């Protein structure tokens, strides 16, 4: 029989076989996930030999279920290599060469190699395709120079998915190529990028005459944007997508803060005003949940409407309002920032406890309307793709990249 027709029961027995070989309760995650990969149970929809069995993606749920049934420990933490597993693997499978698929997919799944994404640049924010990092061919290598920014995990990554400009004479989308960068290469410098909270979730990455072997290019020269689309399509943007539980998330904390307020600290009138605001925020939070539920229901019935597209914009706005309101509820207590602003990698204590979390989120949420597409860009997308309104005049359209005005 061909694996394509493998039944659920056959798959379950294959999982039990894996558990005979290596059991999560007895071996570490690295060892177990290696075996899981070798048995084609990492991504069952991937081809045989690449961590899969060529099955329908839905079948992966069967694997996870069987693992949950037969083991206490679950070595399924996607977060151990989110970008590698979420975006790297599908990109390598679709556009990578044989060497990449053979060598890298397994190490991605085991978490041996952490991956990061090197697209954004200081001069290319909303306009990513306008990026400036230069890649020049030199013998069997490409030599790269320039700076990337907003790179999560760069400081612990082995591989970076990098987009660079290899032909400035073509219009911006057409002059890009896509590389796999060994983050340990000479000339790669990673610096923490501190944000409003003092913490550094992200990095700046500087490339100074970094050499990348030509066979580390994904897709053809000048075909980088198409490859980048694959990566971005797989960006696991939970933003606005997840359906939380009632009173969960930000609004839940706000309600806790409200109910924990010091009696008498507010006048009855001030309480009434704040209560009306909080109720509005509660309603919006619920409606955001319902709207994602509608989106999911519509996907099932196969005719998804606009309800799926509004989440990111609405969530960013709502989250900021909620935390602003939280600070108003805290009143003078909001003058104090107990956790302090220490310049370092994200640490727990700024988010432990309702109070610390509220203050941290008040600051952190300012990024919600910027990261993963600014609210201005989201409104363009809603206006143009969903409502069918015409785009703006585009002075950079069809113009050689080198001739398009850009920030220094």
């Amino acid at each position, binding site marked *: 029989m061909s694996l394509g027709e493998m039944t659920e029961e056959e798959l379950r027995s294959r999982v039990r076989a894996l558990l005979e070989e290596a059991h999560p309760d007895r071996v570490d995650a690295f060892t177990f996930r290696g075996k899981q990969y070798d048995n084609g149970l990492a991504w069952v929809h991937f081809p045989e030999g690449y961590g899969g069995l060529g099955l329908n993606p839905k079948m992966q749920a069967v694997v996870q279920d069987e693992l949950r049934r037969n083991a206490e420990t679950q070595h399924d933490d996607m977060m151990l290599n989110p970008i590698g597993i979420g975006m790297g693997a599908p990109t390598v499978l679709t556009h990578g060469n044989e060497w990449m698929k053979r060598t890298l997919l397994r190490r991605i799944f085991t978490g041996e190699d952490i991956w990061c994404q090197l697209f954004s640049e200081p001069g290319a924010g909303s306009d990513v395709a306008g990026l400036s990092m230069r890649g020049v061919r030199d013998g069997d290598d490409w030599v790269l120079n320039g700076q990337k920014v907003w790179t999560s995990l760069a400081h612990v990554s082995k591989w970076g998915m990098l987009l660079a400009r290899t032909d400035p004479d073509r219009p911006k989308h057409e002059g890009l190529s896509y590389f796999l960068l060994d983050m340990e290469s000479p000339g790669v410098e990673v610096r923490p990028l501190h944000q409003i909270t003092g913490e550094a979730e992200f990095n700046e990455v500087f490339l100074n005459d970094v050499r990348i072997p030509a066979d580390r290019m994904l897709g053809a020269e000048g075909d980088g944007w198409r490859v980048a689309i694959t990566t971005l399509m797989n960006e696991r943007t939970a933003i606005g997508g997840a359906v939380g539980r009632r009173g969960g998330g930000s609004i839940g904390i706000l*309600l806790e803060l*409200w*109910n924990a307020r010091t009696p008498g600290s507010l006048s009855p009138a001030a309480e009434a005003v704040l*209560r*009306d605001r*909080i*109720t*509005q925020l*509660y*309603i*919006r939070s*619920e*409606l*955001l949940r*319902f*709207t994602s*539920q*509608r989106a999911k*229901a*519509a996907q*099932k*019935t196969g005719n998804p409407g*606009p*309800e799926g597209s*509004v989440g990111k*914009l*609405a969530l960013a706005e709502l989250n900021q309002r909620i935390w602003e309101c939280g600070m108003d509820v805290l009143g003078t207590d909001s003058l104090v920032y107990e956790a302090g602003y220490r310049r370092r990698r994200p640490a727990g204590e700024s988010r432990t406890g309702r109070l610390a979390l509220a203050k941290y989120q008040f600051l952190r949420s300012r990024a919600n309307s910027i990261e993963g597409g600014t609210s*201005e860009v*989201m*409104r*363009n997308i*809603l*206006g*143009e793709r*969903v*409502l*069918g*309104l*015409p*785009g*703006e*005049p585009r002075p950079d359209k069809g113009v050689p990249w080198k001739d398009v005005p850009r920030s220094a």
Partner: protein
Amino acid sequence: MDFAFTPEHDELRQTVRRFLDKESSETAVRAVMESDRGYDERTWTRMAEEMALPGLSVPEEYGGAGLGPIERAIVMEEMGRVLFCGPYLSTAVVAADTLLLAGDDDARGRLLPEIASGRALVTLALGEEGGAWEPADVRLEAHRDGASHRLEGTKEFVVDGHVADVLLVAARMDAGVALFEVDAGARGLERTLLPTLDLTRKLARIRFSGTSGRRIGSADAAPQLAMVLARALAALAAEQAGGAERCLEMATDYARTRLQFGRAIGSFQAIKHKCADMLVEVEFARSAAYYAAFRAADEDAQELASASHMAKAYCSEAFFHAAADNIQIHGGMGFTWEHPAHLYFKRARASSVLFGDPVYHRERLAARIGV
């Protein structure tokens, strides 16, 4: 499952939309809104005979279609889109629910078939001066008088009260608030059509001077009335969501085709982003209305109460914003009598107040969720 509309639902929506496109064009709406009756009798009859809409949620045993709040929300949403002028809310929604919930078999048996067949218009007379909508606020009094009762007082903002054949009147009695059936022809009944801000929904003041009424249901109908009101809010919210959707469509259609400075105005972010923000509110409004409809459908009284406050509070504001932005996007044209934009604007404003405004409903909701 929540928000899972069936093919039958989509079919119903399409049928209703086709019917309304034919029967409730802008021309028809303008003609009817200028009339005192405020609706077209032939259309209403056709709506009953061809579509069975007046009896949509009347049980089959009473000659209705026996469908529920979800189907009703779909119908109201479609009616809201075209500002349908007719006694649907008053008769097919509020009055039908009142009779269904009042627990009076005799009244049900006499009146529901009349409603379903489109022969009778029935409306609930609840609100009074000062305009509170809760049974507790009813001041109009009923006194026993032999077999029947005599009603004394005035009802305000009674939807279609000037044309209704039968009035269901909430009146105060020692035991609490009870419901009375009053014939439109009864003596001591004075009905005044109010000059409304929103010409597409008629309201009347009804003065009762020793008017005789027949009590229906129990001596204390407050719980039933609360349920009737919650279901009415859900239906009205769906109508508002429909109106908001239509405003967004009008605005985007215009923004796509109207050219200034050699560009479609919709290519300017000032307009494009206004439309995008409208889209978010419209989708939220639909979510609110649908959620309330689904809660009404599974008769979860507690959750329905919260959901209906939520829906009415949000859909009222979403519709008003959409209607105001639609005028703005149309510029001077949107401000003229000839253009329909102002009709939606007035409907939005009026429906946001009918059965309680957003602040009122948020206050009720806050109490329920313990904020």
